[in-house]
């Protein structure tokens, strides 16, 4: 383990983290902090509201009542409570994912461009590191390091929220441990999220490759090239269809080409095609089924998954080539 952490490749990953920790770490911490702050504000508002109205909450929420309620709760109720707690974690996860998408998207666009713009590429290239290793370190930073940090922060935020709610319960004389902590299963969901990182990573490859190619290839404005080209292509394809000329099926074009080139870094964005193809019910009662282990296994049977991965790897190879031979004269 120590040898791995001290390998040159590990240093490349650390380098990526140092450069982007503002996005990878601090953006996530800020988002989680905002949710916690809102939780606290909500509790304070509730208390103030209660005090003003002169309603004694303990009548409704008193220890006896809650404990009694729990005792009488059926297995089904407990199950619902656990799901609810999981959903809280998913809310943290959702906010964190939104942050992650933006951070990773712009990280990839800048990954092979920023150092060419400020000429620090000449320093990186003066070291005995191959361009292949450099590019792959950036892929891993985007697909593994950034999501793992997001998950850790998410979990910390969730535990923080539970502690705040527990303190609130305690302030009202309710024992939070029986209610809140005994039934929350953050760690099993956490493991679940870890496995999902793998599925997300393979699914995201085409977008990663697409963004890296433009990042490595263009002289300026990688964002415009990377975003405008697929959108213009999509509009043109639609227009050709309007004229009655042979075109690619519009829905296919937007979904499988434009969408995969630009949006596959969205965590769990394979859910929709997965559901369509395997009939996984994710709008029904069991919302978590869409990201169950079975559903993830299904996702690997999607042709979109594998074709996208192959195209993504080819694009990453092209990015490596550009990184190696792009000559700023």
């Amino acid at each position, binding site marked *: 383990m120590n040898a791995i952490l001290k390998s040159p490749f590990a240093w490349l990953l*650390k380098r990526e983290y*140092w450069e982007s920790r503002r996005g990878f770490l601090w953006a996530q911490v800020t988002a989680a902090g905002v949710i916690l702050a809102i939780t606290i504000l909500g509790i304070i508002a509730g208390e103030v509201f209660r005090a003003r109205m002169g309603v004694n909450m303990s009548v409704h929420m008193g220890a006896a009542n809650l404990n009694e309620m729990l005792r009488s709760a059926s297995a089904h109720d407990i199950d619902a409570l656990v799901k609810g707690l999981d959903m809280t974690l998913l809310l943290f996860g959702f906010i964190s994912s939104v942050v992650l998408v933006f951070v990773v998207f712009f990280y990839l666009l800048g990954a092979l461009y920023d150092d060419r713009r*400020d000429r*620090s590429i000449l*320093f990186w290239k*003066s*070291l*005995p*590191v191959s361009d292949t290793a450099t590019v792959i370190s950036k892929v891993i930073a985007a697909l593994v390091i950034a999501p793992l940090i997001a998950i850790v922060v998410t979990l910390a935020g969730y535990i923080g929220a539970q502690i705040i709610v527990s303190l609130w319960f305690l302030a009202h004389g309710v024992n939070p441990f029986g209610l809140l902590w005994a039934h929350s299963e953050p760690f099993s969901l956490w493991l679940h999220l870890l496995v999902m990182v793998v599925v997300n990573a393979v699914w995201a490859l085409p977008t990663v490759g697409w963004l890296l190619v433009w990042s490595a290839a263009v002289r300026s404005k990688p964002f415009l090239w990377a975003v405008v080209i697929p959108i213009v292509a999509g509009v043109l394809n639609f227009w050709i269809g309007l004229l009655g000329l042979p075109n690619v099926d519009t829905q296919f074009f937007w979904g499988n080409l434009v969408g995969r080139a630009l949006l596959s870094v969205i965590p769990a964005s394979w859910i929709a095609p997965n559901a369509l193809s395997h009939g996984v019910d994710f709008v029904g009662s069991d919302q978590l089924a869409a990201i169950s282990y079975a559903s993830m296994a299904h996702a690997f049977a999607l042709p979109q998954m594998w074709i996208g991965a192959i195209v993504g790897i080819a694009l990453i190879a092209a990015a490596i080539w550009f990184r190696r*031979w792009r000559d700023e004269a």
Partner: protein
Amino acid sequence: MNAAAEAIAERPATPPAAGSETVVHARGLTKRYKNAVALDGADFQVGNGRIVGLIGPNGAGKTTALKAILGLTDFEGDLKVLGMDPRRERPLLMREVCFIADVATLPRWIRVHEAIDFVAGVHPRFDRAKCERFLSRTKLQANQKVREMSKGMIVQLHLAIVMAIDARLLVLDEPTLGLDILYRKQFYQSLLEDYFDENKTILITTHQVEEVEHILTDLLFIRDGKVALGTTMEEMGARFAEVLVNADKVEAARALKPIDERAAVFGKSIFVYDSADPEQLAQLGEVKRPSVSDLFVAIMKGTYA
């Protein structure tokens, strides 16, 4: 056998004499861009243990030649650096070759200790203690970011890192551009005192010829993508001469086919000669070795015309 004797025994019986081994070997080195030829069949060699000045006017192909040597660009022709092809063996080559490309190419976000940690992590020939010793002579702080440093301090950091790497070839491309005189002097002083030895080779391009003149052992003048002159400093002194000629001897001086003539004070003229007879020159006036910059001007005459 005692330790000292062992240490001696471990070294090669006779250390390679300066210049005996070729570090860079270029034959017909050519690089064409879309609209221009940057290198046009340049031939040159850089010997081991030399400090070579690669000097040429703007656009002559200096930087392209360095890029080819560093494997940063594709090219035509033959080029071997330390026996390796820079195009195919770049990662391996960069263990033996260090490189400072003008000032301020260190990433602006990096901190001093991060830069050191990183280089120590990826470079097998980096000596961390040595680097820290060099840095202790500067005002740089471990936690300082490059963006908070002056140009001179950035170069100090870069130089401290590079000098702590036991490389065989150090390539410097305009390393002191935009630095004040104190930093510039210190830069070359450190290189000579703390870095250079008979197993190291330094290749420098710069426009500030006067500043490197006294440390160079070899000259490579490059013009229009070709090597206009390749010589050691000793050979240069033997081959070229500069004469300060009184007005009355100007015609005689011109008869000896000078490669350059320019006016000096009090109606005198300065003539530069290539391979002229020293005795004949002595009759014209005071003879001395031309400075590198005067020789450069003489040889590059008409470049921009």
